[in-house]
């Protein structure tokens, strides 16, 4: 398999049969604890009323955003975004603050509440299997998918492929490639026959959440300094006013005080 400059997936919900081979493959490949997982089957599952029914399931894992909010929120630099698209997490640097969990609009990083500070490795999430793709293999979930609901490749090619599928079967798909622009673009491109919210995906704009938050954050220091100045000025002002009040209220005492102080 060739290596890609921007590694990406297509997940096509019309092809997913909810067999969970991806979940087992991921668990084995990445040696995941038996009570943990890096992949969920999301989505509403069964929809409708007998006998008019529909199913929708989604293989849910890290979207590997172009502008990752987790990375942006991490105060200790435990996250990094590789040039070829992978969003990676370094357990050794993590301090367990869980800012990334709150920051991720997809709710992907998850915390291991069973472990204490000493044991480390608090946060876990999909890595896109760098140990595989760096030697030319597909991620474990993609490699085993019996119905090719997951495919792997160069992001630009996959964006074209996704649109081609919609064009070929407009009756089958919602006319949108989720992740093409959402949150500034993700490496996980999703095609669906049901509204994306029914797959458990948030409705997001194309401006990355991170850009908004970082814009806000840019004002933090000026704001802090400014607010500090205001508070200082207020404190000084109050003090001066009080001094003035006291001076006005007790002129005789004050007159005597210097003498006492001198004592």
């Amino acid at each position: 398999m060739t290596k890609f400059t921007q590694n990406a997936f297509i997940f096509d919900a019309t092809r997913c049969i909810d067999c969970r081979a991806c979940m087992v493959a991921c668990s084995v490949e990445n040696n995941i604890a038996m009570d943990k997982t890096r992949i969920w089957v999301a989505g509403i599952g069964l929809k409708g009323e007998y006998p008019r029914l529909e199913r929708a399931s989604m293989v849910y894992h890290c979207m590997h955003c172009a502008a990752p909010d987790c990375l942006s929120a991490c105060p200790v630099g435990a996250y990094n975004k590789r040039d070829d698209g992978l969003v990676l997490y370094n357990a050794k640097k993590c301090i367990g603050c869980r800012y990334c969990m709150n920051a991720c609009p997809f709710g992907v990083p998850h915390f291991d509440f069973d472990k204490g500070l000493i044991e480390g490795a608090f946060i876990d999430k999909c890595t896109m299997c760098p140990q595989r793709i760096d030697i030319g293999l597909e991620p474990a979930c993609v490699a085993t998918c019996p119905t090719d609901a997951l495919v792997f490749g160069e992001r630009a090619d996959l964006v074209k492929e996704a649109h081609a599928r919609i064009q070929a079967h407009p009756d089958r798909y919602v006319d949108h490639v989720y992740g093409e622009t959402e949150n500034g673009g993700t490496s996980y491109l999703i095609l669906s026959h049901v509204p994306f919210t029914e797959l458990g995906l948030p409705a997001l704009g194309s401006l990355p959440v991170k850009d908004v938050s970082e814009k806000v954050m840019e004002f933090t220091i000026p704001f802090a300094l400014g607010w500090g100045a205001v508070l200082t000025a207020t404190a000084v002002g109050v003090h001066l006013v009080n001094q003035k009040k006291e001076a006005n209220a007790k002129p005789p005492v004050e007159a005597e005080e210097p003498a006492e102080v001198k004592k």
Partner: protein
Amino acid sequence: MPSSISRRDFLKISGVAAGALALGKFLPPRAAEAARLYGLLDAASSGYIPSMCEMCVWRCGLLAKVETGRVVKLEGNPDHPHSNGKLCPRGQSGLMNTYDPDRVLTPLVRVGKRGEGKFRKASWDEALGIVADNMLSIKNKYGPEAMIFSTTHCLSQFQFENLLNAYGSPNYGTQRSLCFNAMIVSNLMTYGMEEPNRDYSQLKYIILTGRNLMEAISTSETSALSKAIDRGVKVVALDPRFTKTAAKATEWLAIRPGTDLAFHLALLNVIVSEHLYNAPFVSSYTDGFDKLAGSISQYTPEWAAGITEIPADTIRRIAREFAAAAPYAMAHNGWRTSNFVNSFQTERAIAILNALVGNWNVAMFPASGEESSGLGAPPQPSYPRISAQRLDGVPWKYPFVPLKIGVFQELRDAALSGMPYQAHGWFISRQNPAMSLPDRGRTLQAFGKMDFIVTIDILMNDTAWFSDVVLPEASYLERYDPLNIVGDKAFIRQPVIEPQGEGKSSLWIYKELGKLLGLGDYFQYADDEDYLKQQLAPLGVSLDDVRQKGYVDLPAESTEFSEPTWSTPSGKIEIFSSTLAQGNFAGVPQWEEPPVPAAGQFYLLTGKVAQFTQFGTQNNQLLHKYSDDPRLWINAATAKSLGLADNDPVEVTSDAGKVHIRLQVTQAIRPDCVYLTPGFGHLSRGLTTAYGLGACDSDLHVTYTDPISGGQALSQTFVTVKKI
């Protein structure tokens, strides 16, 4: 449900359970040496070794990733046509089958009462000695026919049959009558072959009857159907449940259980009466069309609508669409239509429907057998003549059932009744009749009639739990099996790690037992590798080459075009079967009314989920982790009318027995049906992950046998459901 043990932890645990032997075990030195020689493993014994999956009988090719002597990951083998590089969830979980902490690691001999689960460890010498003594004593006292042999479809089956035939017993049980006898026998009657190959690549229209390919996964066929759907093929799915296959179909018909025959008879009616069939094909290659045309006129869509609860217009439209798509149309013959006693005729109607659209060599092709010329075999002396009749009624009661397939539930019933004679011993390999046969109560009673029971398995399955001796098999990642022919190649299953504990291959067990029984001449191979070398001898290929490549190419068969022929009495596709007519059965399919549930009763349905294979994978921790709780499905409106809510504990009662289980209230099932995930409700406390989960469908299933094919009518059981 999920335990908090990490995979690394339970690998450690299994090592501890295995004793010091299993810790840090590497490949057998010779295997490692050969694998390194061919670059499969590096100096540190790490790399990929090709072999074959055995999490179900589809047998995908796999590549086992080995790191310092441990299997750490399984990949689908792109060279194998059953996997095409993919593995299903069961295949992916395969290393947990090998590293299951519940593995039986030494031969065990029962010390408590049967079913108490008290065993002591024994050496292979002692355990095989006990088995041989008992088998010889039964043979001397009652004759060889007093010994039952049963196994499930597997690669060492030929050597199992060798042991059975050499010992001289006619009593052979397989799983097939519990699965797809109706399909096999109807194909034999119609096409002269058990199961034609199917090809989806050119199809435009598919009717799936009881074939839930998206949950009962056969990797390459599931993949082929998925690709066909992606291309835009029209799929009509007949199923009383909204399965994951029904969800992918163009059209789901929630047909009333037991009436698939009426639906297909009506399709035949429309295609014949409106002259929509492929006339040139029918006249050249089929026999008996006139007889069908004469009898089919009564089965109109209007007639079928009342029976199937599918509107006549829908049936008529589907018949026309199906015929219009000819020859790129296929009615899948399914496996699990053997659900009612009329299922044989259902399968016949489906087989004939395919013949009428002339899809031969387009959608259906001659079966490529697993037994092919080209491979060698150890020399085989002739078997002793068997005079005793078979307990399962083949052929004296079931003349059309092949001897190698049999009627397993009848065999069990004969063991229980002692008619026509009493069986005294049961030799079971990689099979779990305590779960697979209908009416578990009767199976346990039949066990009680046995002087001696021995079970070979990798786990303490429920049948092993009731056995006198349990022999530990090496898992599929730890042993050789005979080569397996798929298409124009023979694939190898080879050990990728050394067996846990004292597990041994079936090839070794049958040979060693054969020697003790005085049947050594029937097992003329020095060891497993020698067996494979004898298979390869005519090809002039070395075993080492095959071990490296994973397969050997077989000599090409003639590709010259020849007129299609079928191994039937007429040499054609038999729309009318004179064989059936001579047996006083309908020569062309006719409607047979199935029984219906009484008021307050439900049809009891079963059917696979993607994570489990029959009764053998429920203890796999990885599959357990990623599967849903086994509950009893009930339609939401029905539940409401009965005052039942989701997750309510209920008692389910049939004529055979009762079970307790929690409800799953769902829209995805007909209001007159309930569905139970099969394979749960284990009795063996030696299965620590699976024990205590779900309920056993076999406790409920009533034994009904289709008189023609011998298939168990698996859905012909009716139950009541009440809150407890």
